[in-house]
């Protein structure tokens, strides 16, 4: 009896439960088994789009901030969030939370694209070009958005000397990266986008196509004041015939990805939002609470006064102080609409004295006509073209970039005032003192 008990005790005490310590996560998957098949890598590519659409990247905050920092009296930040408030009054602290989040989320996006590129070998050959092209497109677009925010604009001084942003071209860079020059960053962006133009298909659902890459390329060249190349890239998009202007300007906006209308005929590229995934932060900050927004940003009469009373784009404003472009909480965020390509082509043609596609006057009248301004202009100046661009693309995240490249000012601040550039986030400089801080933000 005693022996039996002792055996029982020993068994109980020393019974091996060691295998009970092998517990694998079920909500996530071990990295090594996450990228084994072509489908796995394609899913990661989709993940990169989702990251691109993060609220702090192109889900709205970068566009919002481009409007806030570029504004001079046409809108008003009335919100309680401190970070956008600092951006609006152009007095960013080095600890600005938005400056930090945009940086972090953007590099997370780039990392996903780099991880895709690093695993192209498992992608089936029929899809390899497309996957590579999309990853490079995402990497280029994100680097481009970053360099415009955190560095001097391309045309300010010598881009080969000005610090740009760190170029992340490999995944999981545990060692900190330092800033490349503005020139180096642009060269890489153009390289990636050119590859994307060559690799991507003509149609690809709401994902990037060869024309999406061209459209972004047109923006890159425009920032460099390389008008001919910008014009050519924009023209390529228009001439493809894949896109068309919607007859009703208002229909461009607030389209939800729920259901079939994923992207409109005019959308060259848009961030997809559903009521279960994605976020539209333009709506968050511009829309009133009736549309699920915070209503932090008012449009001032000074902006409304710029429109012709007959302009349908004026009619889109509501409550006399809010843009109607953003009043669907779950609406897609337009990134590139075809009308921008017409405006870019018009500007490029005008500045180069050419008429690729059609004359600048015709492109501008085409855009005005769609907005209900049926009386064509007889002639256009560069100011007309830029005003038309301002009105057509208002509150879509172009403001500061157009001001900088055309070297206009924001109120009393010249285009290259240091306060119009974000600080390198303090968090990053604490980790990597090799990251040079921007002018005007201490040492």
């Amino acid at each position: 009896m005693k022996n039996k008990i002792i055996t029982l005790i020993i068994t109980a005490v020393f019974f091996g439960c060691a295998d009970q310590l092998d517990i694998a996560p079920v909500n996530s998957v071990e990295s090594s088994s996450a990228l084994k098949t072509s489908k796995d890598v394609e899913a990661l590519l989709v993940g990169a789009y989702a990251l691109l659409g993060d609220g702090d990247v192109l889900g709205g905050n970068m566009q919002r901030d481009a409007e806030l920092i570029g504004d001079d009296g046409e809108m008003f930040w009335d919100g309680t969030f401190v970070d956008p408030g600092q951006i609006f009054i152009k007095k960013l602290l080095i600890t600005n939370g938005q400056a930090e989040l945009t940086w972090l989320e953007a590099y997370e996006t780039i990392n996903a694209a780099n991880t895709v590129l690093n695993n192209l070998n498992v992608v089936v050959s029929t899809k390899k070009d497309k996957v590579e092209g999309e990853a490079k497109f995402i990497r280029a677009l994100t680097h481009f958005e970053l360099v415009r925010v955190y560095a001097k604009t391309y045309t300010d001084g010598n881009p080969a000397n000005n610090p740009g942003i760190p170029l992340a071209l490999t995944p999981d860079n545990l060692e900190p990266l330092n800033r490349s020059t503005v020139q180096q960053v642009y060269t890489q962006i153009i390289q990636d986008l050119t590859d994307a133009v060559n690799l991507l298909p003509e149609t690809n659902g709401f994902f990037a196509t060869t024309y999406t890459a061209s459209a972004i390329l047109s923006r890159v060249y425009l920032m460099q004041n390389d008008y001919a190349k910008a014009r050519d890239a924009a023209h390529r998009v228009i001439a493809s015939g894949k896109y068309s202007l919607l007859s009703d300007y208002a229909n461009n906006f607030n389209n939800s990805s729920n259901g079939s209308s994923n992207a409109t005929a005019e959308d060259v590229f848009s961030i997809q939002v559903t009521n279960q995934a994605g976020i539209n932060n333009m709506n968050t900050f511009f829309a009133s609470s009736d549309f699920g927004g915070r209503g932090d940003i008012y449009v001032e009469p000074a902006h409304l006064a710029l429109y012709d009373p007959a302009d349908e784009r004026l009619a889109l404003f509501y409550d006399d102080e809010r843009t109607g472009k953003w009043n669907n909480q779950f609406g897609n965020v337009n990134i590139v609409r075809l009308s921008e390509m017409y405006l870019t082509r018009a500007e490029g043609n005008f500045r180069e004295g050419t008429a690729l596609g059609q004359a600048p006057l015709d492109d501008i009248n085409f855009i005005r006509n769609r907005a209900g301004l049926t009386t064509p202009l007889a002639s256009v100046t560069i100011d007309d073209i830029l005003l038309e661009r301002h009105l057509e693309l208002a509150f879509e995240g172009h403001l500061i970039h157009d001001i900088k490249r055309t070297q206009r000012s924001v109120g009393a601040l010249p285009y290259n005032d240091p306060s119009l550039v974000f600080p390198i986030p303090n968090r990053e400089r604490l980790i990597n003192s090799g990251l040079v801080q921007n002018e005007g933000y201490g040492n």
Partner: protein
Amino acid sequence: MRKFLLLMTILGLCLPNSLWAQERTVSGKVTSEVDGSSLPGVSVLLKGTSTGTVTDVEGNYRLSVPTTGGTLTFSFIGFTTTDVAIGANSVIDVTLSEDVKQLSEVVVVGYGTQLKQDLTGNIAKVSGSQVENIPVPSFEQAIQGRAAGVFVEASNGKLGQGIKVRVRGTSSLSAGSQPLYVVDGVPITSQSQTALSGDTNPLADLNSFDIESIEILKDASAAAIYGSRGANGVVIITTKRGKSEKTNFNVNFMTGFSEPTNHVEWLNTAEYVELFQEARANTGYISVASLEARLDRYAGGVRAAWQDPSSPSYVDTDWDRQALVRGSINQIDFSASGGTEKTRFYTSLSSSNQDGILLGTAFDKVNGRINLDHEANDKLSLGMSFSLGRTINSRVPDDNAFSTPLQMIALPPLTPIIDTRTNLLSGVLDLTTGLPNSNFPLYYNPLIDINYNDNTNTVFRNLGTFYGSYNILDNLRFRSEFGYDLLSQHEERYLASVASRNTGAPNGQGDDIRTQVFNYTTNNFLSYNVSFGQHELEAVGGMSFQNSNANFARVQGQQFPSDSYRKITSAASITLGNATETEYSFLSYFARANYKFANKYLLSLSGRVDGSSRFGPDNRYGFFPAASAGWILSEEQFLSENNTIEFLKLRVSYGLTGNAEIGNFPWQGLSSGDGGYAGVPGQRPSQLANPDLRWEQTSQLDFGIDFGFLNNRITGEVDYYVKNTSDLLLNVNLPGTAGAARTQVKNLGNLENKGFELVINSVNLTGELKWNTSFNFARNRNLITDIQDQVVDGNFLSRAVEGEPIGIFYGPKYAGVDPANGDALYFMKDANGELTATTNDYNAAEFTKIGDPNPDFIWGITNNFSYKGIELSVLFQGVQGNDIYLGGGKFFAANGDFFDNQRKDQLNRWRNPGDITNIPQARLFDGNGTGESSRYVEDGSYVRLKTLTLGYNLPRTLLSKTSFTKVRIYASAQNLLTFTDYKMWDPEVNTDLSNAGPNAGGNVTTANVSQGIDFYSAPQAKMITFGLNIGF
């Protein structure tokens, strides 16, 4: 446990009995002086021999003694040992008086019990009677100020919220720093499980009334038996068990009310208007008309509301007093306990309902318990503990939400509570659209939340322990325990359509969230004790396995037909669905040996091998040994004759404990499947691998002295300890360009806690008027000795910096106001690198240490008085030398930067050149001095009259004619008085704005590093309760 000791005593004493000649017998009854009750289990020993017996259930004994002479020694734990000469008596009844020596107490240690005088480790004990009638939702709050070196801090005045407990300092940066909680042998789930903002406290599900004792294992010797779980200290909770006696019934009824400990004074309407007119004029960002239009808007469209004090429409709302209201509590507890020699039981039922002082908060609790012990035969005993409870917590959002009640104070005083245009709460309905308004009042009105939204957290909690104990030999016992903790939580929140300004859901939003945590433990161990000659040896060894599995599911819907429909079934659109699961396990082998020689030399060795699923295969196991020794000097010849020193013991302990509270899969590289995009599935890298990750280790050295002077009327303990944590589990910030993750858990760095603790208990007066005092004092110094220059940030300016204590405030040092122009100034380095130059450019200011939230020392003092049946107990408790950061300062102490109402001191703003003040010029929208800086650091030291209880026991002479054994009426006050220079609501504060719980995406690093932050945090409640306690 106590029964086990008793059993050992019986076994030890009965054996030699038969060796003695039996010539006559004495018998008698032993009773307690305290209440006259019979005392079972009292040891009765013929002095100078080993002849003895113990009293039976009725307190009777019978013993054979030699024919002549002899003295009987009666001893019983908790009572004074009494000698009685036998003389010619054959019946000797004895009344034992309660021992004032606390040293002979039995304390619960891991997997056993020990006499306090034999301890070589440091364990603080709080008895259940000290906490049972304190009307706080969770028992840890009741031990505040009662145990040396145990820092307890409620984050704010919300009910059932997370409570911070630190035993001898914070010993980790990124791993959990809360102690391990063990109830009746089972480690329980103590981490917040809410998926909504603001941590909740699973310990609040326990019933304080059921607690027999709380032991806090503080040093390595005491805690190492819990090995990897012990680095933060271990809190062992033992529930009440039945005794072999007649059934005792006990009923306790308590009712009372509560008030906030403090209100803060804000600008009234006239002051507000004046300040903002001035602030506008100073910047000119907006016109006079625009400002007036705004004030009209905030005043509900009525200009007289802010402009004309004589008008009946004039508004002057004190929002502070709208948010902080009178609360109430009602509680009833019932218990019955008793049993026969073979079977004993304790059963209880409790119910309490509490309404908080923060508008909209309430906490209701019902608990039932049954504890059974049965002796099947003289070898086998078995039993169980089983409790089932339900708590319903009516919650409000965390401190960072516009909708949290105390953010009401941001609303201008000129905003009416009721909008005269609608006769509804301000902000409820827009006149023109009929939809919720987006620009009136200034912010979303939290009163809307309280009146229209629901947020309840219902928890069913079931703890069960089953044990069997078998005596293999007389001194070798095997015990097997299986215990589980089932936590089932249901959170339901409905955000009404009228709340859409805050929620972004114009037609309502509902959440239904279910969490289930099943956590079980089995312990199997052998206990052995032997004594030979002057040697005594006690050993325990065995294994333990714990597994915890958490399941979580959430569904969220929007688009409800109306606010009458609140269940997800009525949502036209499902906007979020989520189900997850996570699990961990620990496998442990442990052993301990306590050796005592000649009653004066003590040695204890313990060790534990822990394996955890939380580490990779190569680093899965850790070994945590400890050794300690004690020397009872008072047993030595040279002190035995000393009349002053009754008891003196030196002790020293050293050992290793560990910490693995770092999430369940921290070492693995992970990819998450949540990268879907517009319905297309997607994944993303989410965590970078670190297969080398291993246990965080804390070594602790403790020197202690236990003493008893003047017949033990003065007793106490002094301890000095050094705790070194190495291989810190640190969530290291990665450069943003690393991409996949912002942080990675590494073993990096070391930190140290060292400190001094003092406990003094004194019996000042005996006799009719009794007075005793219990004082404790603890000073802990935390120092981050090495984190390789990593920067670990918490909220606001909280940071972990090498060479400093955890969580100091690090930022620009405010240099006051430039008398010439009213600019806020900050210190910057001068040409010599000294911090003497000033600048008005925040970005140019030098970042430096500007405050320390860690207290210099904490203390508590309890004085108990009794006179006849009247008892008075007074507990003062204090925290000294800690700073508090006002996270909301940039909004409410911002010299009119934005339209938030301002704290009254902002009226002292700079106005004219030459003005000397610390408040910068009022400048609307200009951020003059509103950057986070030492401007918002305030001293948080306080002394508090924590508990004051006055009780009256009806005299026994009166009761003897009734069937009542006890009738006690009492009145009690919590937090009655607070002495502090702190200018906000309450200095016992740490905002709940960042969750630590896993279901809310908690960030433990942030929670550890962010200390002493006030962000619209509700004050503690001042509670007055009246109670009646009846025993029969």
